């Protein structure tokens, strides 16, 4: 398949005319037709003729010329409705484009559709969607992961060359691992959030999903940077990530914390993560012991801060402006609104919100200390393999515990790269998580690229 090729190969092919971008777009639409409805991958699909017309209007010299992409349906787009997978916004057609979408369009990429997700980002399975539960391409009886499940499945099933997810408490990382693709949670502030429907504003990040670390670097170079429409976007200059990636990282110190390999972790995932560490060691890096003593309570802090913020962010859907009433919120969303409202109420603020902020500060210090001893921290991505559809939706607590390795990174605002690292004996993919210091995306991508040059897990495809 043309869409198995890397972004650089596609772009080079377009330039020397060995590949026709029209064929690639046709291929993507064929995959959409084949899988989207069965797996509930996309919520809205762009008219093909419109996409092809856009292609004809583009200059082939553009950085991302002709590359088809999928956006999570949490991004404001003028071409397609933006539902955030909730019936509340069933017929909401935005009047403006999210900054990330604007940048990709300007670079010549072409939007093909909007990916399914847990409504408002509430979940790690894409089961909490008002547009059908997302199914895993590797085993359609299992969840696809989430909340960016649609975009991740779209990459895995080659409906696009890359996708844009959104990661608050693991929403890019979790489905990347469960779909055998690469995903990057960026440093908070690295990419503008303008136009991304807010879940928990202090942790929401906009990041790419792709086939390889190299592809992620190509996309990040385009979407990163400060934005006058986002006061929390960082002024740090944007490096050329593709160039950083081409330099083989030398003798990195990879930190492993034994606390992170406790009883809640699936034994095979645990062994897989350790095997990954061995491979890095073979590649010339040094594995060092670190300690992350309070990481285990990060879930508690996250599940206070995120619902508090979401209860505030969702108050604009008051039934007056978007045509649909609040009873259309999913159970999971209502639960988070209720919990968050309670935690922010006077008399409870100090007991919950303020205490969670203190844990957040402690976590930042804990990781700072750990980063004194290493360059990158290696964590498992998910403690469990994707559950059967419907298994966890009735067990919200188990659902939250699945975020164990994601929430500490979200709370400290660090970047984290998830890449495929092998397979479970049940045939499903496993991914690992490489966490860096703030703005260390370049280093993470270079390390991921080095690993992917030496392994072929990421090239394996589902058997649908």
């Amino acid at each position, binding site marked *: 398949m043309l869409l198995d090729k890397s972004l650089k190969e596609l772009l080079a092919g377009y330039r020397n005319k060995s590949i026709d971008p029209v064929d690639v777009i046709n291929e993507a639409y064929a995959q959409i037709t084949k899988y989207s409805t069965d797996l509930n991958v996309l919520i809205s699909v762009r008219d093909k003729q419109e996409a092809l017309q856009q292609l004809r209007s583009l200059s082939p010299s553009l950085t991302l010329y002709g590359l088809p992409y999928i956006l999570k349906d*949490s*991004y*404001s787009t003028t071409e397609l409705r*933006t539902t*955030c997978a909730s019936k509340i*916004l069933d017929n*909401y057609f*935005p*009047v*403006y484009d*999210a900054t990330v979408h604007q940048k990709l369009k300007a670079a010549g990429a072409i939007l093909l559709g909007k990916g399914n997700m847990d409504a408002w980002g509430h979940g790690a399975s894409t089961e909490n969607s008002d547009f059908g539960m997302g199914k895993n391409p590797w085993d359609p009886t299992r969840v696809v992961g989430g909340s960016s499940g649609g975009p991740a499945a779209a990459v895995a099933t080659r409906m696009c060359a890359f996708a844009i997810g959104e990661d608050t408490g693991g929403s890019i990382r979790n489905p990347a691992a469960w779909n055998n693709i690469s995903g990057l949670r960026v440093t908070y502030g690295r990419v503008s*959030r*303008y*136009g*991304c*429907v*807010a879940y*928990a*504003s*202090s942790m929401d990040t906009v990041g790419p999903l792709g086939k390889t670390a190299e592809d992620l670097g190509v996309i990040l170079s385009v979407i990163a940077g400060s934005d*006058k*429409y*986002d*006061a*929390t976007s960082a002024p740090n200059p944007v490096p050329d990530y593709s160039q950083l990636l081409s330099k083989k990282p030398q003798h990195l110190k990879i930190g492993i914390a034994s606390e992170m390999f406790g009883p809640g972790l699936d034994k095979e995932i645990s062994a897989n993560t350790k095997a990954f560490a061995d491979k890095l060691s073979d590649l010339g890096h040094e594995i060092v012991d670190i300690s992350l003593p309070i990481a285990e309570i990060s879930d508690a802090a996250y599940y206070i801060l995120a619902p*508090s*913020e979401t*209860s*505030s962010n*969702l*108050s*604009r859907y*008051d039934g*007056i*402006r978007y045509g649909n009433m609040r009873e259309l919120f999913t159970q999971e969303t209502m639960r988070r609104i209720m919990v968050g*409202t309670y935690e*922010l*109420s*006077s008399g409870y*603020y100090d007991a919950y*919100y303020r205490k969670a902020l203190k844990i957040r500060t402690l976590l930042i210090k804990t990781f700072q200390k750990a980063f004194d001893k290493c360059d990158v921290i290696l964590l498992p991505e998910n403690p469990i393999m994707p559950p059967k559809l419907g298994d966890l939706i009735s067990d919200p607590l188990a659902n939250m515990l699945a975020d164990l390795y994601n929430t500490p990174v979200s709370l400290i605002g660090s970047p984290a790269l998830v890449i495929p690292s092998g397979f479970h004996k049940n045939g499903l993919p496993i991914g690992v998580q490489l966490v860096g210091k703030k703005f260390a995306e370049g280093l993470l991508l270079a390390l991921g690229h080095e690993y992917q040059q030496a392994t072929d897990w990421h090239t394996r495809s589902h058997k649908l």
Partner: protein
Amino acid sequence: MSYSLICGAEIHIELKTKSKMFCGCKNDPFHADKPNIYTCPVCLGMPGALPVPNKKAIEDCILIGLALGCQIAKVSKFDRKHYFYPDLPKGYQISQYDEPFCFKGSVDTSFGPVRITRVHMEEDTAKLQHTTVDGKKVSLIDFNRSSVPLVEIVTEPDIKSPEQAKEFLKKVRDIVRTLGVSDCDMEKGSMRLEANISLAPVGANPCIRPQLPNYKVEVKNINSFRYFANSLTTEFARHSKILDRGETPVQETRGYRADLGTTVSQRVKEDAADYRYFPDPDIPPIVISDEWLSQIKSRLPKLPSAKIDTLIALGISESAAKIIVTNQVMMEYIDQVKTINPKYLESVAKDLVNKKIDPAKLAPSDYIKGLESRLASQISDESVLKPIIEKIIADNPSVVSDFKSGKQNTLGFFVGAVMKATHGQADPGITNKLLHDLLH
């Protein structure tokens, strides 16, 4: 039983910055041709839109704080204040909760100082219009005002009388106008007032500040200083009656009704509203460096009280000076006269205040020319004036007897008659002196 009034004020002031508080939309709600023309995803609260604070508005807020003698925070932040209302598109208002830009100020009045609790920055709401369209009663929303920068000034309960309230509020308005950051137009609503009122029994020692009572009534919808004073008067009477019966007035929000000249109950507050304040995660904390603060301070113009002192030092009467400082046009006129010839300031001030000069029509130089020629032809020779005055006294015996029986205002009659007889050329000072001598 006698009571003393305890009142604190909340003053909202819309800043006249070019753009709105958190977006680039034009800030001009009062001159918009149509509703909803100055809007964007941010001030409409659309999904995904983010607020970016207006630096100029923050500076203006701090400037007001400085002018009201406040301390300025080193680090401040914005918070979300949650409540449901159709004019609030996000479901929360971006305001400041526990770390306002400015705090602990004070404004002097002739009845004693009024302490300023805080001066903070927030965004205005949209405007609701309840009207009838095609025979149907509808509520329409105009977002031109949504997210316009709004400064809130909160005082301690230091206002003790309607007179003090008026003086204080006027002073605040004059200061803000002098800063040039708001028009403070109460008709249009760019300055809005609220009073928090309660009464305390007067103790044995009136010098001791009474304890704060266990209730408080909030009065809204006040759009003039007079109405503010009226609301204090009527509330004082209402509370006194209730307290005399041994009861406590209900803790509630009342609205001032100009048509009735009194307040009416709007809603009873069972509990303090729970606004679920928390720091707005979309806006990083704001650090006010010494450098930035001194830049803002350098914008601080001479404030009205200092200006009044300057005018008095130039020979202008205190009463005229107080009027002139509130009027930019008069101030400029005075400035120009000062550069031409400062010795005429007293008379130009008097003429401006008595509206004998229309500054739009008479240039200061022409005014001085006219004044000088009048002075040149002025009759100040007592030997010329005396016979004229004697004749007028002889011709008006009844007015003379009125004057002698104590009607001092009849003096004006004689001055007028002398001016008429001399075609306005009699020296007023000498005329007065002669009249005085001759009538007694």
